[in-house]
């Protein structure tokens, strides 16, 4: 394995990024950026296999979700197809004490946190709003309003500092996920302002999948997104988001910088949304097939597979076995999604306020009485 020649950092050329694994499965030992940082990974064979398992599994679960949506079992689904490496790489880079703030597409990150993948399905099926306890899973609730979670993550990170939980190798770090489109939101830029001013222990992880629904990157910026960071006083770096190794290495480094008190980093993971924006979208209206084809050649899974094969890290039946396991997981997921019960109507009135409200109690009582009036009437 050669020493990486690509030079990347705050002044990498457009299109340049940190890459450790080429689309053909060639591996660079390390990459050194212009600022002198060296990125590398040192995985055991089993860890490589584990990464491959993750990638395949999150894609397979995603495929199942797409199917469930088509069959009317989910109201909508936001597929991560094509973004597996960015998500698995960054997600695996998190240490147990770290906290993640996702958008609505980070099913892969969720999976790598060891969370039951069914967790967000309540939201997409429409049986609930997708609520869970962020602190239990060190994984915040999905956020639908574009960009808002970046401020939540920043505030949480300020709290980490206030709690004295930075400045050492076992400090805590925070990661905020968002898309290329989100970089245009005022709130996201305010998160950059605040993180710089308070030297917050945070990593901004932007999955630049080239589109915000139909709008191509040029509608959000005319320079590479990672460069946004410099104007707020922290480093920005672009990584090959289809390379799980580089995504891991760069995120791990940035998180460790954050936890040791060196403040924020913006990571732009350069990737591509292979599917529709969501199941409601029709990408053929705004992008051409050849573009999608070109990105297929950069697939995050096939390159790791090529590497594993070339390096003889895996046994003959490994790939089939992984596929089988993933399918088993997917079918289990399907079964459990189908079994998700619809909420009881009267739960409408629950959890509006921690302390409740007499006005709501009144409305709940009226509602209950009204519902009861239909009993036996076949309503």
């Amino acid at each position: 394995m050669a020493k990486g020649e690509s030079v990347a950092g705050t002044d990498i050329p457009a299109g340049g990024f940190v890459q450790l694994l080429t689309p053909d499965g060639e591996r660079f030992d390390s990459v050194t950026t212009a600022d002198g940082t060296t990125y590398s990974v040192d995985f055991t064979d089993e860890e490589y296999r584990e990464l491959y398992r993750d990638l395949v599994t999150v894609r397979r679960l995603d495929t199942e979700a797409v199917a469930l949506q088509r069959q009317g079992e989910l109201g909508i689904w936001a597929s991560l197809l094509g973004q597996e490496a960015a998500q698995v790489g960054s997600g695996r880079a998190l240490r147990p004490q770290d906290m993640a703030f996702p958008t609505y597409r980070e099913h892969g990150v969720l999976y790598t946190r060891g969370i039951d993948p069914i967790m967000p399905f309540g939201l997409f099926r429409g049986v609930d709003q997708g609520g869970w306890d962020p602190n239990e899973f060190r994984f915040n609730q999905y956020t639908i309003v574009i960009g808002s979670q970046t401020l939540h993550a920043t505030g949480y990170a300020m709290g980490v500092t206030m709690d004295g939980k930075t400045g050492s190798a076992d400090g805590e770090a925070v990661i905020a996920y968002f898309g290329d489109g989100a970089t245009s939101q005022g709130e996201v830029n305010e998160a950059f302002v605040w993180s710089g001013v308070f030297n917050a222990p945070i990593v901004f992880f932007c999955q630049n999948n080239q589109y915000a629904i139909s709008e191509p990157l040029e509608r959000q910026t005319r320079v590479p997104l990672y460069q946004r960071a410099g104007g707020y006083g922290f480093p920005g770096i672009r990584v090959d988001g289809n390379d799980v190794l580089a995504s891991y290495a760069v995120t791990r480094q940035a998180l460790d910088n954050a936890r040791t008190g060196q403040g924020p980093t913006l990571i732009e993971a350069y990737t591509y949304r292979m599917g529709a924006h969501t199941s409601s979208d029709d990408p053929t209206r705004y992008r051409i097939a050849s573009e999608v084809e070109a990105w297929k050649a950069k697939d995050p899974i096939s390159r790791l597979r090529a590497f594993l094969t070339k390096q003889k890290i895996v046994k003959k039946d490994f790939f089939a076995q992984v596929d089988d396991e993933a399918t088993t997981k997917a079918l289990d997921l399907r079964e459990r999604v189908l079994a998700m019960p619809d909420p009881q109507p009267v739960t409408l009135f629950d959890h509006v306020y921690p302390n409740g409200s007499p006005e709501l109690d009144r409305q709940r009582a009226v509602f209950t009485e009204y519902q009861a009036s239909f009993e036996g009437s076949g309503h």
Partner: protein
Amino acid sequence: MITLGKALNHGLRRALEDDPKVVIMGEDVGKLGGVFRITDGLQKDFGENRVIDTPLAEAGIIGTAVGLAIRGYRPVCEIQFDGFVFPAYNQIVAQVAKMHYRSQGKVRLPIVIRIPFGGGIGAVEHHSESPEAYFAHTPGLKVVSCSNPADAYSMIQQAIASDDPVIFFEPKRRYWEKGEVDLSSALPAATPLHSARIVRPGTAATLLAYGPMVRVALDAASAAAEDGRELEVIDLRSLSPIDYPVIFESVRRTGRAVVVHEAPGNVGLGAEIAARITEECFYSLEAPVLRVTGYDIPYPAARVEEEYLPDLDRVLDAVDRSFGW
């Protein structure tokens, strides 16, 4: 027969044709034609300078529209869903609503802000809200909502032609409902933008609704008619100002009124309408004005939204309660 969505599309097209200063702007309004296809084909025909795909930033959409309006343009802004108008709220209430007043009439901002609103489409959070009260409570804004394809076609053109800033609420779950639209009709012949309309005459009680709830009110009136109770249904069309003369005249005749909307009841439009009717028709009322609204909860998960949304049964129940007073 065309759908309400298509009627809006025709209305926008005609506005673009009629006035070169009209520009459409928003997220995904170009090639995609908007997530609901309301601007379908317009960028292709009028170009990227007239139909502008914007960065993903609602404050930016409205803030730059203000600047374009000062420059002499007539921006028609699309907010993708009701729940995403709030990043632009500062620009709307502190700038769009106030600039004409601030400038003592010297600056006009003929901006239309289109907002698909309301629930009933099985969507996730933030995609089913009814924020009209936030805007109706804001002096300086006019607020309207269409309920059928013919109105959609004329009202969007009237809103664009008006020099007042107009918040234009589109009943998203009615986008696919069809109706007759005379695409050759001239604007001046249309019902004025701020007029309410009696869409079904009746004598027993007055139902007041707008946008997506007009259909529900009409269905309730049909059902009541089968039981021999003739309900009058008024489509408000304009939410600020409200066309009160039509309402008062009706309620004085019927003696009973029920207001229907999806938004939470607390400090909603129904409250204002109830209060005004009571002030003006006190001695005509046989019962208090009743409200059938969303509950005072965040918009709930899709699988239970039908329990949240006013429906025929809840409207009839309110009518019954009014008669039982």
